[in-house]
């Protein structure tokens, strides 16, 4: 006896899975993939791990004014010690 779709949806699905397994499971997979495509990434971000920081495509320039630096200048006399090794 065939169950009715709108009165007993789960029983109807079970009946379909037994009587038309190829149609039933291909439709099941076909409908589940768009849902997964939309849902998996937000769920992964929420429950598993976050996205990684985007890899810089150029030198990550700091947003600040230049500061005066000491060392390794043209008149740095200590630098000569590095050239011996």
């Amino acid at each position: 006896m065939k169950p009715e779709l709108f009165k007993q949806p789960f029983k109807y699905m079970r009946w379909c899975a037994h009587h038309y397994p190829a149609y039933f499971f291909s439709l099941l997979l076909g409908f589940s993939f768009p849902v997964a495509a939309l849902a998996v990434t937000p769920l992964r971000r929420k429950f598993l791990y976050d996205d990684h920081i985007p890899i810089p495509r150029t030198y990550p320039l700091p947003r600040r004014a230049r500061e005066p630096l000491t060392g390794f200048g043209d008149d740095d006399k200590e630098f000569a010690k590095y050239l011996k090794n």
Partner: protein
Amino acid sequence: MVNVREPVVNYGLVVEPAPMPPHIPEVPEIGASSAPLMSASFFIGARCKPYGDDYLLCKKEANGRGELDCLSEGRRVTRCAISVLSDIKKHCAKEFFTHWDCLDRNELEFRNCRPAEAILNSCVYKNLGLEKKIPGTAEGTTPIHLREKYIYKPYREDPASIALAKAKASE
């Protein structure tokens, strides 16, 4: 018969056709190929980040004339990198050689040389105080070079670095 010829580099024959003008101060070449530079890269970054940042900020300020106006900042970057390589060679010569030789033989991939890298990192940290830090590592995760297990295994195990690790362990 194939013409077999030994490769020869004679720097005496190499002439610089357009030398720098004499009023610009001299700076030596770094004199390292890609494998040693790759091996020392994170230590160069650790010591020379302020100079590198300053050079690129100068180039940004110079608004297109950076190659001319930022020569002195560029020389500072070169000298800083030389100082790091020189210090590593002075204190950790064997560890450094093992690591960059491994990189040179294994496609310049850090993942192929983790045993040698761990030894080099600890030696450089002990002697120079420079630490490898990968920028952008997510909080609460172990950086890739400190992990025990790897998803991607090395291309092949490097026998020299494993021998050095054993020698270090038995000391």
